[in-house]
């Protein structure tokens, strides 16, 4: 475990910018967990007297049109961001990885499966998610599901490609020629080699999930309005852009810095990958 952690940290030693990205992510996770402790106010407490205040000593990030403290809402927003990210990544990996691995090992199944993925990929990502939202209805778990389906396609495609490449490796062929069964091959040779590339993919999916979820929230089709998500804050604050520009600055900045950090981390991890896998994970 310690050795694995150390290996994970190696790419960040020499890249201060990527290390900063990792630091911001850790900060975001800590913020999400400790939100009730860190937030100076109740994020939903309405205070009609202090509406649309610019940043000041009492409210560092200012207040919104209901007098709610923006700093507290941004802190609580980290919770939803983390939930969305973890949810989408888990869904994409849990469905996409088996689909990709099995498709590569069983060509007949793979032909059907990959055609299906092709078909799903012919829908522009946000429209696919919107279509699913229409069927499923609005809500946090439905947003996760809808965005998850979008990244299920790319994840299974990448896993498929990686597994196909692994299958032609000499040692896997050697194992097969000695009579190793398909599942033994998967467990011993395929899955361990998929971990690093999929970690890279996971960080990119996490990043894009933030942007997709923010878009859904912004369109009023994501998390319910009472939840203080960064996207909802932008949607609600939109009409006050000229009167209170700070209203939109902090939640938008939170989305951008999270996605940016994840992209930095993903890039740093990818550059450490085996070159044979690297070009498959190019965005």
């Amino acid at each position: 475990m310690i050795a694995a952690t150390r290996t994970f940290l190696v790419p960040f030693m020499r890249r201060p910018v990527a290390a900063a990205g990792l630091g911001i992510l850790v900060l975001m996770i800590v913020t999400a967990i400790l939100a009730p402790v860190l937030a100076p106010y109740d994020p939903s407490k309405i205070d009609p007297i202090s509406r649309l205040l610019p940043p000041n000593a009492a409210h560092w990030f200012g207040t919104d049109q209901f007098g709610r403290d923006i700093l507290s809402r941004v802190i609580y927003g980290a919770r939803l961001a983390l939930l969305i990210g973890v949810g989408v990544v888990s869904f994409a990996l849990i469905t996409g990885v088996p689909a990709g691995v099995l498709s590569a090992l069983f060509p007949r199944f793979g032909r059907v499966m990959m055609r299906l993925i092709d078909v799903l990929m012919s829908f522009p990502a946000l429209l696919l998610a919107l279509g699913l939202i229409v069927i499923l209805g609005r809500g946090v778990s439905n947003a996760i599901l809808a965005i998850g389906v979008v990244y299920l396609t790319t994840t299974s495609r990448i896993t498929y490609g990686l597994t196909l490449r692994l299958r032609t490796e000499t040692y896997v062929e050697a194992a097969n020629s000695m009579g190793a069964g398909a599942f033994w091959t998967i467990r011993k040779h395929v899955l361990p080699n998929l971990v690093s590339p999929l970690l890279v993919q996971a960080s990119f999916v996490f990043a894009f999930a933030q942007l997709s979820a923010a878009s859904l929230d912004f369109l009023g089709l994501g998390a319910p309005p009472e939840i203080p998500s960064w996207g909802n804050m932008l949607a609600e604050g939109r009409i006050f852009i000229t009167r209170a520009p700070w209203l939109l600055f902090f939640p938008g900045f939170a989305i951008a810095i999270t996605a940016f950090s994840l992209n930095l981390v993903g890039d740093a991890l990818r550059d450490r990958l085996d070159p044979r896998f690297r070009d498959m994970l190019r965005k």
Partner: protein
Amino acid sequence: MGSYALHRTGAAIATLAAASVIIFFFIHLIPGDPIHVLLGDTATPDQVDALRAKLGLDQPIILQYFRWLANVARGDFGTSIFFQMPVLKVIGDGAETSILLATITMIWITIIGVPVGVIAAMRHGSWLDQGLSGVAMLFASIPTFWVGLYLILIFAAWLGWLPSSGYPSIFEQGGLANLRYLLLPSLALAAPNAALILRLTRASMLDVAREDYIRTARAKGIRPMRVILRHILRNALLAVVSAFGFTFAALISEAVVTETVFALPGIGQLVVQSILRRDYPVIQGIILVTVVLYLAVNLLVDLSYRLLDPRVELQ
């Protein structure tokens, strides 16, 4: 060439056929009776009966699908519940805005992403390169609508240089000058995509620069600029051209949000409003149209790639 084009077109049509099944079932997956999903709650019994007969809702589902497909092939996408107009007409009204927005954005992406990517690659490892790559990654991480909102604040509200929202057709009063309404939206939409094209151009320039044939070109005594433009860029662009396919898909997605921010009367805003209005036939129509468009663009990219890369012929 002919058989390659035929093969690719066949594959695209097969994908479209499979996608059409999903799109057809979309209506059936929405909770509620499909008739009411298609006509809305205010439909008269006459309308219900007419549609039931037209789609044959008492028939087996396979037959219903083929009837629907036949209607779609004739251009009959059904009727909008909200507008009480043919769906295709409703979509057509938004087409001008969306097509112009996409075209202008594509121009931005190309004239910003490719040259800046080339410059970054030429100065590989320098501060300029690191700065440009960093900025590109930042732009790829910023929500488009956030960029859009601040563009409105700065250029429309504070400076007053450009209109903040809406778009009157170029065929109406104002003519081509109306394109200024699309300047801010197209810039907001271009930002993340130009950033991706920049990074891709830079990366594939650097990949190609390491190829043996670039050494051959240099050994001939060609000037560095010509080596870069004639040999490196020409090969690097192959990867960039193939990326324009998925850039277009990303564009469609992000246009939905951008049109909403700038209140542009395009297809993107239409889909969002139709979702809020529960105008399902319009949503279904828009999804179908974008899938067709996306497959057509990818087919074009594929075929033009074939013209650019002589090696594809053999594969």
